[in-house]
Protein backbone atom coordinates (compact mmCIF):
# COMPACT_ATOMS: atom_id res chain seq x y z
CA UNK A 1 0.00 0.00 0.00
CA UNK A 2 1.28 3.39 -0.96
CA UNK A 3 -0.70 6.62 -0.92
CA UNK A 4 -1.18 8.46 -4.20
CA UNK A 5 -0.01 12.12 -4.46
CA UNK A 6 -3.65 13.18 -4.21
CA UNK A 7 -4.14 11.14 -1.06
CA UNK A 8 -0.99 12.57 0.50
CA UNK A 9 -2.25 16.05 -0.32
CA UNK A 10 -5.62 15.32 1.32
CA UNK A 11 -3.89 13.96 4.42
CA UNK A 12 -1.45 16.85 4.76
CA UNK A 13 -4.24 19.38 4.25
CA UNK A 14 -6.49 17.64 6.78
CA UNK A 15 -3.85 17.43 9.46
CA UNK A 16 -2.76 21.03 8.82
CA UNK A 17 -6.38 22.11 9.21
CA UNK A 18 -6.70 20.12 12.43
CA UNK A 19 -3.44 21.50 13.79
CA UNK A 20 -4.68 25.04 13.07
CA UNK A 21 -8.08 24.40 14.67
CA UNK A 22 -7.35 26.26 17.95
CA UNK A 23 -6.40 29.43 15.99
CA UNK A 24 -9.43 29.11 13.76
CA UNK A 25 -11.65 28.60 16.82
CA UNK A 26 -10.10 31.71 18.38
CA UNK A 27 -10.53 33.74 15.21
CA UNK A 28 -14.23 32.93 14.85
CA UNK A 29 -14.83 33.24 18.58
CA UNK A 30 -15.95 29.63 19.08
CA UNK A 31 -13.64 28.04 21.67
CA UNK A 32 -16.03 25.08 21.86
CA UNK A 33 -14.74 24.00 18.45
CA UNK A 34 -11.54 22.88 20.18
CA UNK A 35 -13.48 20.36 22.25
CA UNK A 36 -15.27 19.22 19.13
CA UNK A 37 -11.89 18.72 17.48
CA UNK A 38 -10.64 16.68 20.43
CA UNK A 39 -13.77 14.58 20.29
CA UNK A 40 -13.27 13.96 16.57
CA UNK A 41 -9.67 12.83 17.20
CA UNK A 42 -10.75 10.48 19.99
CA UNK A 43 -13.56 8.91 17.98
CA UNK A 44 -11.20 8.65 15.01
CA UNK A 45 -8.83 6.54 17.12
CA UNK A 46 -11.70 4.26 18.14
CA UNK A 47 -13.02 4.01 14.59
CA UNK A 48 -9.56 3.31 13.15
CA UNK A 49 -9.11 0.49 15.66
CA UNK A 50 -12.46 -0.98 14.62
CA UNK A 51 -11.46 -0.71 10.97
CA UNK A 52 -8.52 -3.02 11.71
CA UNK A 53 -11.10 -5.66 12.60
CA UNK A 54 -13.97 -4.87 10.23
CA UNK A 55 -12.13 -3.54 7.24
CA UNK A 56 -8.85 -5.40 7.30
CA UNK A 57 -9.62 -8.74 8.93
CA UNK A 58 -13.27 -8.97 7.89
CA UNK A 59 -14.59 -9.30 11.45
CA UNK A 60 -17.62 -7.05 11.94
CA UNK A 61 -17.57 -6.63 15.71
CA UNK A 62 -20.76 -5.04 17.01
CA UNK A 63 -19.34 -4.65 20.51
CA UNK A 64 -16.44 -2.32 20.01
CA UNK A 65 -17.85 0.33 22.36
CA UNK A 66 -17.11 -2.04 25.25
CA UNK A 67 -13.38 -1.46 24.87
CA UNK A 68 -13.86 2.28 24.60
CA UNK A 69 -15.90 2.24 27.80
CA UNK A 70 -13.54 -0.08 29.65
CA UNK A 71 -10.61 2.19 28.81
CA UNK A 72 -12.56 5.19 30.11
CA UNK A 73 -13.66 3.46 33.32
CA UNK A 74 -10.12 2.17 33.97
CA UNK A 75 -8.91 5.78 34.15
CA UNK A 76 -12.02 6.95 36.00
CA UNK A 77 -12.03 4.21 38.62
CA UNK A 78 -8.32 4.53 39.38
CA UNK A 79 -8.70 8.29 39.87
CA UNK A 80 -11.79 7.67 42.03
CA UNK A 81 -9.76 5.49 44.40
CA UNK A 82 -6.61 7.60 44.30
CA UNK A 83 -7.38 9.35 47.59
CA UNK A 84 -7.80 6.04 49.45
CA UNK A 85 -4.38 4.87 48.35
CA UNK A 86 -1.13 5.56 50.17
CA UNK A 87 1.90 7.11 48.51
CA UNK A 88 3.20 6.65 45.92
CA UNK A 89 0.07 4.90 44.55
CA UNK A 90 -2.17 7.92 45.12
CA UNK A 91 0.03 9.89 42.72
CA UNK A 92 0.46 7.11 40.19
CA UNK A 93 -3.28 6.53 39.97
CA UNK A 94 -3.72 9.95 38.34
CA UNK A 95 -0.58 10.03 36.17
CA UNK A 96 -1.20 9.61 32.44
CA UNK A 97 2.00 7.60 31.97
CA UNK A 98 0.77 5.05 34.52
CA UNK A 99 -2.99 4.82 33.94
CA UNK A 100 -3.26 5.26 30.17
CA UNK A 101 -1.22 2.11 29.47
CA UNK A 102 -3.56 0.33 31.90
CA UNK A 103 -6.52 1.67 29.94
CA UNK A 104 -4.98 -0.11 26.95
CA UNK A 105 -4.05 -3.31 28.79
CA UNK A 106 -7.33 -3.92 30.66
CA UNK A 107 -9.51 -3.99 27.51
CA UNK A 108 -6.80 -5.90 25.64
CA UNK A 109 -6.63 -8.60 28.32
CA UNK A 110 -10.41 -8.96 28.45
CA UNK A 111 -10.51 -9.01 24.66
CA UNK A 112 -8.08 -11.94 24.68
CA UNK A 113 -10.60 -14.00 26.65
CA UNK A 114 -13.79 -12.72 25.01
CA UNK A 115 -12.23 -12.77 21.55
CA UNK A 116 -11.26 -16.42 22.01
CA UNK A 117 -14.94 -17.18 22.63
CA UNK A 118 -16.42 -14.90 19.95
CA UNK A 119 -14.01 -16.06 17.25
CA UNK A 120 -15.42 -19.56 17.44
CA UNK A 121 -18.33 -18.13 15.50
CA UNK A 122 -18.49 -16.21 12.25
CA UNK A 123 -20.89 -14.12 10.19
CA UNK A 124 -24.12 -13.08 11.90
CA UNK A 125 -23.31 -15.14 15.01
CA UNK A 126 -20.09 -13.18 15.45
CA UNK A 127 -22.00 -9.90 15.22
CA UNK A 128 -24.55 -11.09 17.78
CA UNK A 129 -22.08 -12.54 20.28
CA UNK A 130 -19.85 -9.44 20.26
CA UNK A 131 -22.99 -7.37 20.80
CA UNK A 132 -24.04 -9.60 23.70
CA UNK A 133 -20.68 -9.32 25.47
CA UNK A 134 -20.65 -5.54 25.09
CA UNK A 135 -24.18 -5.25 26.48
CA UNK A 136 -23.06 -7.38 29.41
CA UNK A 137 -20.40 -4.79 30.25
CA UNK A 138 -22.95 -2.02 29.74
CA UNK A 139 -25.30 -3.54 32.32
CA UNK A 140 -22.37 -4.20 34.63
CA UNK A 141 -21.51 -0.50 34.77
CA UNK A 142 -25.17 0.48 35.09
CA UNK A 143 -25.33 -1.80 38.11
CA UNK A 144 -22.10 -0.58 39.72
CA UNK A 145 -23.59 2.12 41.97
CA UNK A 146 -20.18 2.83 43.55
CA UNK A 147 -19.05 4.22 40.22
CA UNK A 148 -22.21 6.20 39.60
CA UNK A 149 -24.28 3.50 37.92
CA UNK A 150 -26.59 5.09 35.37
CA UNK A 151 -25.37 8.59 36.18
CA UNK A 152 -21.79 7.88 35.25
CA UNK A 153 -18.52 8.65 36.96
CA UNK A 154 -16.97 12.10 37.15
CA UNK A 155 -13.22 12.54 36.80
CA UNK A 156 -12.17 15.29 39.22
CA UNK A 157 -9.25 16.37 37.12
CA UNK A 158 -7.52 15.20 33.99
CA UNK A 159 -4.70 12.66 34.17
CA UNK A 160 -1.46 14.42 34.93
CA UNK A 161 0.84 14.97 31.98
CA UNK A 162 4.12 16.71 32.85
CA UNK A 163 4.22 20.20 31.36
CA UNK A 164 0.52 20.38 30.54
CA UNK A 165 -1.99 22.22 32.69
CA UNK A 166 -5.00 19.97 33.37
CA UNK A 167 -7.51 22.67 32.44
CA UNK A 168 -5.81 23.69 29.20
CA UNK A 169 -8.26 22.49 26.55
CA UNK A 170 -6.02 23.54 23.68
CA UNK A 171 -3.08 21.57 25.05
CA UNK A 172 -5.35 18.59 25.56
CA UNK A 173 -6.52 18.88 21.96
CA UNK A 174 -2.92 18.54 20.84
CA UNK A 175 -2.52 15.48 23.06
CA UNK A 176 -5.49 13.90 21.29
CA UNK A 177 -4.22 14.90 17.86
CA UNK A 178 -0.76 13.48 18.61
CA UNK A 179 -2.31 10.24 19.83
CA UNK A 180 -4.37 10.02 16.64
CA UNK A 181 -1.34 10.54 14.41
CA UNK A 182 0.68 7.94 16.32
CA UNK A 183 -2.16 5.40 16.22
CA UNK A 184 -2.70 5.88 12.48
CA UNK A 185 1.03 5.54 11.77
CA UNK A 186 1.13 2.38 13.89
CA UNK A 187 -1.89 0.91 12.09
CA UNK A 188 -0.42 1.75 8.72
CA UNK A 189 2.81 0.03 9.69
CA UNK A 190 0.89 -3.02 10.89
CA UNK A 191 -1.19 -3.10 7.70
CA UNK A 192 1.93 -3.32 5.55
CA UNK A 193 3.66 -5.90 7.74
CA UNK A 194 3.61 -9.67 7.38
CA UNK A 195 0.91 -9.76 10.03
CA UNK A 196 -1.21 -7.24 8.12
CA UNK A 197 -0.76 -9.22 4.92
CA UNK A 198 -2.14 -12.28 6.67
CA UNK A 199 -5.13 -10.31 7.98
CA UNK A 200 -5.83 -9.13 4.43
CA UNK A 201 -5.68 -12.70 3.22
CA UNK A 202 -8.05 -13.92 5.93
CA UNK A 203 -10.59 -11.27 4.97
CA UNK A 204 -10.38 -11.96 1.25
CA UNK A 205 -10.28 -15.73 1.26
CA UNK A 206 -10.02 -17.62 4.52
CA UNK A 207 -10.36 -20.95 2.72
CA UNK A 208 -7.33 -20.23 0.58
CA UNK A 209 -5.34 -19.14 3.62
CA UNK A 210 -6.00 -22.48 5.28
CA UNK A 211 -5.09 -24.30 2.08
CA UNK A 212 -1.65 -22.68 2.17
CA UNK A 213 -1.13 -23.89 5.73
CA UNK A 214 -2.25 -20.95 7.85
CA UNK A 215 -4.40 -21.38 10.96
CA UNK A 216 -6.42 -18.14 11.01
CA UNK A 217 -7.49 -18.17 14.66
CA UNK A 218 -4.35 -16.79 16.37
CA UNK A 219 -4.14 -13.96 13.86
CA UNK A 220 -7.78 -13.03 14.24
CA UNK A 221 -7.39 -13.09 18.00
CA UNK A 222 -4.29 -10.89 17.84
CA UNK A 223 -6.16 -8.39 15.67
CA UNK A 224 -9.09 -8.48 18.11
CA UNK A 225 -6.79 -7.79 21.07
CA UNK A 226 -4.81 -5.06 19.32
CA UNK A 227 -7.95 -3.30 18.22
CA UNK A 228 -9.45 -3.49 21.72
CA UNK A 229 -6.28 -2.02 23.22
CA UNK A 230 -6.32 0.93 20.83
CA UNK A 231 -10.01 1.51 21.55
CA UNK A 232 -9.08 1.49 25.24
CA UNK A 233 -6.67 4.35 24.60
CA UNK A 234 -9.49 6.24 22.89
CA UNK A 235 -11.56 5.60 26.04
CA UNK A 236 -8.80 7.00 28.25
CA UNK A 237 -8.74 10.16 26.15
CA UNK A 238 -12.54 10.36 26.09
CA UNK A 239 -12.94 10.29 29.86
CA UNK A 240 -10.22 12.93 30.16
CA UNK A 241 -11.80 15.13 27.51
CA UNK A 242 -15.19 15.38 29.22
CA UNK A 243 -13.95 14.50 32.73
CA UNK A 244 -16.79 12.01 32.72
CA UNK A 245 -17.42 8.36 31.93
CA UNK A 246 -20.89 6.94 31.59
CA UNK A 247 -22.36 3.57 30.63
CA UNK A 248 -23.56 5.26 27.42
CA UNK A 249 -20.00 4.88 26.17
CA UNK A 250 -20.52 1.10 26.20
CA UNK A 251 -24.05 1.08 24.85
CA UNK A 252 -24.75 -0.80 21.63
CA UNK A 253 -25.70 2.46 19.91
CA UNK A 254 -22.09 3.60 20.40
CA UNK A 255 -20.86 0.34 18.82
CA UNK A 256 -23.23 1.03 15.96
CA UNK A 257 -21.97 4.59 15.58
CA UNK A 258 -18.40 3.34 15.39
CA UNK A 259 -19.41 0.91 12.65
CA UNK A 260 -21.11 3.74 10.77
CA UNK A 261 -17.95 5.85 11.06
CA UNK A 262 -15.89 3.05 9.57
CA UNK A 263 -18.26 2.46 6.66
CA UNK A 264 -18.76 6.18 6.09
CA UNK A 265 -15.01 6.76 6.00
CA UNK A 266 -14.40 3.81 3.69
CA UNK A 267 -14.22 0.24 4.94
CA UNK A 268 -10.67 -1.04 5.22
CA UNK A 269 -9.12 2.20 4.05
CA UNK A 270 -7.26 2.92 7.30
CA UNK A 271 -7.22 6.72 6.81
CA UNK A 272 -10.93 6.76 6.05
CA UNK A 273 -12.03 6.01 9.62
CA UNK A 274 -10.70 9.42 10.62
CA UNK A 275 -12.90 11.21 8.08
CA UNK A 276 -15.89 9.06 8.98
CA UNK A 277 -15.43 9.86 12.67
CA UNK A 278 -14.95 13.59 12.07
CA UNK A 279 -18.01 13.73 9.83
CA UNK A 280 -20.16 11.94 12.42
CA UNK A 281 -18.98 14.12 15.31
CA UNK A 282 -19.59 17.33 13.35
CA UNK A 283 -22.94 16.20 11.93
CA UNK A 284 -23.98 15.10 15.39
CA UNK A 285 -23.16 18.52 16.84
CA UNK A 286 -24.77 20.50 14.01
CA UNK A 287 -27.93 18.43 13.79
CA UNK A 288 -28.36 18.25 17.57
CA UNK A 289 -28.54 22.07 17.69
CA UNK A 290 -31.13 22.00 15.00
CA UNK A 291 -33.47 19.29 16.18
CA UNK A 292 -33.56 16.77 18.98
CA UNK A 293 -34.50 14.12 16.43
CA UNK A 294 -31.10 14.47 14.80
CA UNK A 295 -30.87 10.75 14.15
CA UNK A 296 -33.80 10.91 11.75
CA UNK A 297 -31.90 13.45 9.66
CA UNK A 298 -28.61 11.64 9.98
CA UNK A 299 -29.97 8.39 8.59
CA UNK A 300 -30.72 9.64 5.06
CA UNK A 301 -27.42 11.56 4.93
CA UNK A 302 -25.52 8.34 5.67
CA UNK A 303 -27.49 6.37 3.13
CA UNK A 304 -26.75 9.03 0.52
CA UNK A 305 -23.01 9.03 1.22
CA UNK A 306 -22.78 5.25 1.17
CA UNK A 307 -24.69 5.09 -2.12
CA UNK A 308 -22.91 7.99 -3.81
CA UNK A 309 -19.40 7.22 -2.62
CA UNK A 310 -19.21 3.47 -2.42
CA UNK A 311 -15.70 3.53 -1.08
CA UNK A 312 -16.71 6.10 1.51
CA UNK A 313 -15.37 9.56 2.17
CA UNK A 314 -11.78 8.44 1.72
CA UNK A 315 -12.62 7.08 -1.71
CA UNK A 316 -14.33 10.34 -2.63
CA UNK A 317 -11.55 12.57 -1.29
CA UNK A 318 -8.49 10.53 -2.13
CA UNK A 319 -9.59 8.90 -5.39
CA UNK A 320 -8.34 5.48 -6.30
Amino acid at each position, binding site marked *: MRESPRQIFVLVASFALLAALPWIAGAVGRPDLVTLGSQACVMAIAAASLDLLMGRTGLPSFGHAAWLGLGAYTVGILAFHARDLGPPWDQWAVQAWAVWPLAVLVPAALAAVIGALCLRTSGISFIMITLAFAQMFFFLFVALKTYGGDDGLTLRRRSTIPGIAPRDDVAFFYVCLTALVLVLLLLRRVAASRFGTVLDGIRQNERRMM*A*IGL*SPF*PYKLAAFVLSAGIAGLAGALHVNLFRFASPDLLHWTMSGELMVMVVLGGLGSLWGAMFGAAAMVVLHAVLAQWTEHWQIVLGPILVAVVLLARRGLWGALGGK
Partner: protein
Amino acid sequence: MSALLEVRGLAKRFGGLVATDGLNLDVASGEIHALIGPNGAGKTTAIGQIAGEIRPDAGTIHLAGQDITRLGVPARVRAGMTRSFQITQVLMNASALANVALVEQVRQGHSFRLWRPAARDERLLAPARAMLERVGLGARADVAAEDLSHGERRQLELAMALATNPRLLLLDEPMAGLGTTESAAMTVLLAALKQEVSILLVEHDMDAVFALADRITVLEGGRVIAHGTPAAIRADAAVRDAYLGAA
Protein backbone atom coordinates in the same frame (compact mmCIF):
# COMPACT_ATOMS: atom_id res chain seq x y z
CA MET B 1 6.57 -50.16 0.88
CA SER B 2 3.46 -48.26 1.84
CA ALA B 3 1.96 -45.57 -0.35
CA LEU B 4 2.43 -41.85 0.21
CA LEU B 5 -1.33 -41.40 0.51
CA GLU B 6 -3.58 -44.19 1.75
CA VAL B 7 -7.33 -43.69 1.82
CA ARG B 8 -9.37 -46.50 3.33
CA GLY B 9 -13.13 -46.89 3.53
CA LEU B 10 -13.85 -43.18 3.14
CA ALA B 11 -17.58 -42.40 3.31
CA LYS B 12 -19.61 -39.22 3.18
CA ARG B 13 -23.34 -38.56 2.87
CA PHE B 14 -25.10 -35.27 2.25
CA GLY B 15 -28.55 -36.02 3.62
CA GLY B 16 -29.83 -38.87 1.48
CA LEU B 17 -27.12 -38.47 -1.13
CA VAL B 18 -24.10 -40.76 -0.86
CA ALA B 19 -21.24 -38.63 -2.20
CA THR B 20 -18.41 -40.94 -1.15
CA ASP B 21 -19.09 -44.61 -0.71
CA GLY B 22 -16.28 -46.65 0.84
CA LEU B 23 -13.49 -45.09 -1.18
CA ASN B 24 -10.10 -46.83 -1.17
CA LEU B 25 -7.26 -45.04 -2.90
CA ASP B 26 -3.45 -45.17 -2.90
CA VAL B 27 -1.08 -42.62 -4.33
CA ALA B 28 2.48 -43.92 -4.53
CA SER B 29 5.49 -41.69 -4.10
CA GLY B 30 6.44 -40.07 -7.40
CA GLU B 31 3.16 -41.03 -9.03
CA ILE B 32 0.53 -39.06 -10.87
CA HIS B 33 -2.72 -40.71 -9.97
CA ALA B 34 -5.80 -39.56 -11.85
CA LEU B 35 -9.25 -39.59 -10.29
CA ILE B 36 -11.89 -39.39 -12.98
CA GLY B 37 -15.63 -39.84 -13.28
CA PRO B 38 -18.76 -38.14 -14.57
CA ASN B 39 -20.12 -34.87 -13.13
CA GLY B 40 -21.34 -35.39 -9.60
CA ALA B 41 -19.33 -38.60 -9.15
CA GLY B 42 -17.88 -37.27 -5.90
CA LYS B 43 -14.39 -36.28 -7.03
CA THR B 44 -14.37 -32.82 -5.45
CA THR B 45 -15.96 -34.21 -2.30
CA ALA B 46 -13.19 -36.80 -2.08
CA ILE B 47 -10.50 -34.14 -2.53
CA GLY B 48 -12.23 -32.04 0.13
CA GLN B 49 -12.07 -34.89 2.62
CA ILE B 50 -8.47 -35.73 1.82
CA ALA B 51 -7.50 -32.05 2.15
CA GLY B 52 -9.37 -31.80 5.46
CA GLU B 53 -12.08 -29.32 4.52
CA ILE B 54 -14.89 -31.87 4.72
CA ARG B 55 -15.15 -34.25 7.66
CA PRO B 56 -15.75 -37.80 6.48
CA ASP B 57 -18.45 -39.92 8.13
CA ALA B 58 -16.13 -42.91 8.18
CA GLY B 59 -12.75 -44.06 6.94
CA THR B 60 -9.10 -43.20 7.49
CA ILE B 61 -6.50 -41.17 5.64
CA HIS B 62 -2.76 -41.70 6.05
CA LEU B 63 -0.03 -39.50 4.63
CA ALA B 64 3.43 -41.08 4.60
CA GLY B 65 2.31 -43.48 7.33
CA GLN B 66 0.92 -40.73 9.58
CA ASP B 67 -2.80 -40.85 10.41
CA ILE B 68 -4.08 -37.43 9.34
CA THR B 69 -7.80 -38.25 9.46
CA ARG B 70 -8.41 -35.84 12.34
CA LEU B 71 -6.04 -33.05 11.38
CA GLY B 72 -7.35 -29.69 10.22
CA VAL B 73 -6.53 -28.21 6.82
CA PRO B 74 -3.51 -26.10 7.90
CA ALA B 75 -1.98 -29.03 9.80
CA ARG B 76 -2.29 -31.25 6.71
CA VAL B 77 -0.56 -28.61 4.64
CA ARG B 78 2.26 -28.54 7.15
CA ALA B 79 2.37 -32.35 6.98
CA GLY B 80 3.12 -31.99 3.26
CA MET B 81 -0.13 -32.02 1.31
CA THR B 82 -2.14 -29.25 -0.24
CA ARG B 83 -4.86 -28.78 -2.81
CA SER B 84 -5.72 -26.49 -5.66
CA PHE B 85 -9.29 -25.48 -6.31
CA GLN B 86 -11.63 -26.23 -9.18
CA ILE B 87 -12.81 -22.62 -8.90
CA THR B 88 -9.76 -20.41 -8.60
CA GLN B 89 -9.22 -19.11 -5.06
CA VAL B 90 -6.62 -16.39 -5.10
CA LEU B 91 -6.48 -12.97 -3.47
CA MET B 92 -7.93 -10.99 -6.34
CA ASN B 93 -6.72 -7.50 -5.47
CA ALA B 94 -3.15 -8.58 -4.81
CA SER B 95 -0.52 -9.08 -7.51
CA ALA B 96 0.48 -12.55 -8.65
CA LEU B 97 3.79 -12.00 -6.88
CA ALA B 98 2.10 -10.93 -3.63
CA ASN B 99 -0.13 -14.02 -3.72
CA VAL B 100 2.83 -16.37 -3.95
CA ALA B 101 4.93 -14.32 -1.52
CA LEU B 102 2.14 -14.73 1.02
CA VAL B 103 2.36 -18.51 0.66
CA GLU B 104 6.13 -18.29 1.06
CA GLN B 105 5.62 -16.21 4.21
CA VAL B 106 3.22 -18.74 5.71
CA ARG B 107 5.58 -21.59 4.83
CA GLN B 108 8.49 -19.81 6.50
CA GLY B 109 6.28 -19.36 9.54
CA HIS B 110 7.03 -15.80 10.59
CA SER B 111 3.68 -14.12 10.22
CA PHE B 112 3.58 -12.53 13.66
CA ARG B 113 5.89 -9.73 12.59
CA LEU B 114 4.00 -6.49 12.94
CA TRP B 115 6.60 -3.91 12.03
CA ARG B 116 8.72 -4.53 8.93
CA PRO B 117 6.99 -4.05 5.58
CA ALA B 118 6.29 -7.37 3.88
CA ALA B 119 6.01 -6.05 0.34
CA ARG B 120 9.75 -5.34 -0.03
CA ASP B 121 11.05 -8.42 1.78
CA GLU B 122 13.42 -10.21 -0.60
CA ARG B 123 13.35 -13.36 1.53
CA LEU B 124 9.74 -13.70 0.39
CA LEU B 125 9.93 -12.11 -3.05
CA ALA B 126 12.91 -14.02 -4.44
CA PRO B 127 11.43 -17.52 -3.98
CA ALA B 128 8.01 -16.22 -5.09
CA ARG B 129 9.48 -14.84 -8.32
CA ALA B 130 11.24 -18.13 -8.96
CA MET B 131 7.99 -20.01 -8.49
CA LEU B 132 6.10 -17.74 -10.91
CA GLU B 133 8.91 -18.24 -13.40
CA ARG B 134 8.44 -21.98 -13.10
CA VAL B 135 4.73 -21.96 -13.85
CA GLY B 136 5.29 -19.54 -16.72
CA LEU B 137 3.97 -16.39 -15.07
CA GLY B 138 7.34 -14.69 -14.59
CA ALA B 139 6.49 -11.81 -16.90
CA ARG B 140 3.14 -11.22 -15.20
CA ALA B 141 4.37 -11.10 -11.59
CA ASP B 142 3.26 -7.54 -10.89
CA VAL B 143 -0.20 -7.80 -12.44
CA ALA B 144 -3.13 -7.90 -10.01
CA ALA B 145 -4.79 -11.33 -9.93
CA GLU B 146 -8.09 -9.77 -11.00
CA ASP B 147 -6.43 -8.52 -14.21
CA LEU B 148 -4.92 -11.89 -15.12
CA SER B 149 -6.60 -14.01 -17.79
CA HIS B 150 -8.46 -17.12 -16.69
CA GLY B 151 -5.60 -19.33 -17.85
CA GLU B 152 -3.04 -17.26 -15.99
CA ARG B 153 -5.10 -17.51 -12.84
CA ARG B 154 -5.08 -21.28 -13.15
CA GLN B 155 -1.27 -21.08 -13.34
CA LEU B 156 -1.24 -18.84 -10.28
CA GLU B 157 -3.50 -21.27 -8.46
CA LEU B 158 -0.95 -24.00 -9.16
CA ALA B 159 1.97 -21.76 -8.15
CA MET B 160 0.35 -21.08 -4.78
CA ALA B 161 -0.19 -24.76 -4.10
CA LEU B 162 3.37 -25.59 -5.17
CA ALA B 163 4.85 -22.83 -3.02
CA THR B 164 3.76 -24.69 0.12
CA ASN B 165 6.45 -27.18 -0.91
CA PRO B 166 4.17 -30.23 -0.74
CA ARG B 167 5.02 -33.91 -1.15
CA LEU B 168 1.53 -34.50 -2.44
CA LEU B 169 -0.56 -32.14 -4.54
CA LEU B 170 -4.31 -32.57 -4.81
CA LEU B 171 -5.28 -30.87 -8.07
CA ASP B 172 -8.97 -30.33 -8.71
CA GLU B 173 -9.37 -29.77 -12.45
CA PRO B 174 -6.27 -27.67 -13.13
CA MET B 175 -7.31 -27.49 -16.79
CA ALA B 176 -10.84 -26.25 -16.06
CA GLY B 177 -11.75 -23.63 -18.66
CA LEU B 178 -8.40 -23.69 -20.44
CA GLY B 179 -8.09 -23.61 -24.25
CA THR B 180 -6.29 -26.35 -26.15
CA THR B 181 -2.89 -24.65 -26.18
CA GLU B 182 -3.16 -23.64 -22.53
CA SER B 183 -4.12 -27.19 -21.56
CA ALA B 184 -1.16 -28.57 -23.46
CA ALA B 185 1.16 -26.12 -21.66
CA MET B 186 -0.33 -27.11 -18.30
CA THR B 187 0.19 -30.79 -19.17
CA VAL B 188 3.87 -30.15 -19.88
CA LEU B 189 4.15 -28.24 -16.64
CA LEU B 190 2.58 -31.01 -14.56
CA ALA B 191 4.71 -33.66 -16.27
CA ALA B 192 7.80 -31.69 -15.26
CA LEU B 193 6.62 -31.52 -11.64
CA LYS B 194 6.55 -35.27 -11.39
CA GLN B 195 10.23 -35.38 -10.44
CA GLU B 196 9.59 -33.81 -7.05
CA VAL B 197 5.94 -34.06 -6.11
CA SER B 198 3.27 -36.75 -6.25
CA ILE B 199 -0.07 -35.70 -7.65
CA LEU B 200 -3.67 -36.79 -7.20
CA LEU B 201 -5.24 -35.33 -10.31
CA VAL B 202 -8.95 -34.77 -10.83
CA GLU B 203 -9.49 -33.86 -14.45
CA HIS B 204 -12.09 -34.08 -17.19
CA ASP B 205 -9.61 -33.45 -20.01
CA MET B 206 -8.94 -37.04 -21.09
CA ASP B 207 -5.98 -36.13 -23.31
CA ALA B 208 -4.26 -34.69 -20.27
CA VAL B 209 -5.25 -37.61 -18.04
CA PHE B 210 -3.93 -40.26 -20.44
CA ALA B 211 -0.78 -38.27 -21.11
CA LEU B 212 0.05 -37.78 -17.44
CA ALA B 213 -1.37 -40.51 -15.27
CA ASP B 214 0.56 -43.54 -14.08
CA ARG B 215 -2.64 -44.98 -12.67
CA ILE B 216 -6.29 -44.06 -12.91
CA THR B 217 -9.16 -44.54 -10.49
CA VAL B 218 -12.68 -44.16 -11.88
CA LEU B 219 -15.48 -42.99 -9.60
CA GLU B 220 -19.18 -43.19 -10.19
CA GLY B 221 -21.81 -42.38 -7.59
CA GLY B 222 -19.06 -42.10 -4.97
CA ARG B 223 -17.80 -45.64 -5.61
CA VAL B 224 -14.70 -46.89 -7.40
CA ILE B 225 -15.85 -48.72 -10.52
CA ALA B 226 -12.39 -49.35 -11.93
CA HIS B 227 -8.75 -48.68 -11.34
CA GLY B 228 -5.55 -49.55 -13.10
CA THR B 229 -3.09 -48.34 -15.70
CA PRO B 230 -4.27 -45.96 -18.44
CA ALA B 231 -4.16 -48.82 -20.94
CA ALA B 232 -6.33 -51.02 -18.72
CA ILE B 233 -8.83 -48.21 -18.10
CA ARG B 234 -9.06 -47.42 -21.78
CA ALA B 235 -9.90 -51.08 -22.43
CA ASP B 236 -12.42 -51.38 -19.56
CA ALA B 237 -15.96 -51.86 -20.83
CA ALA B 238 -17.67 -50.62 -17.64
CA VAL B 239 -15.70 -47.38 -17.73
CA ARG B 240 -16.53 -46.91 -21.33
CA ASP B 241 -20.24 -47.21 -20.59
CA ALA B 242 -20.17 -45.01 -17.54
CA TYR B 243 -17.93 -42.29 -18.67
CA LEU B 244 -15.58 -42.39 -21.58
CA GLY B 245 -18.48 -43.04 -23.91
CA ALA B 246 -17.64 -41.21 -27.07
CA ALA B 247 -13.96 -40.78 -26.24
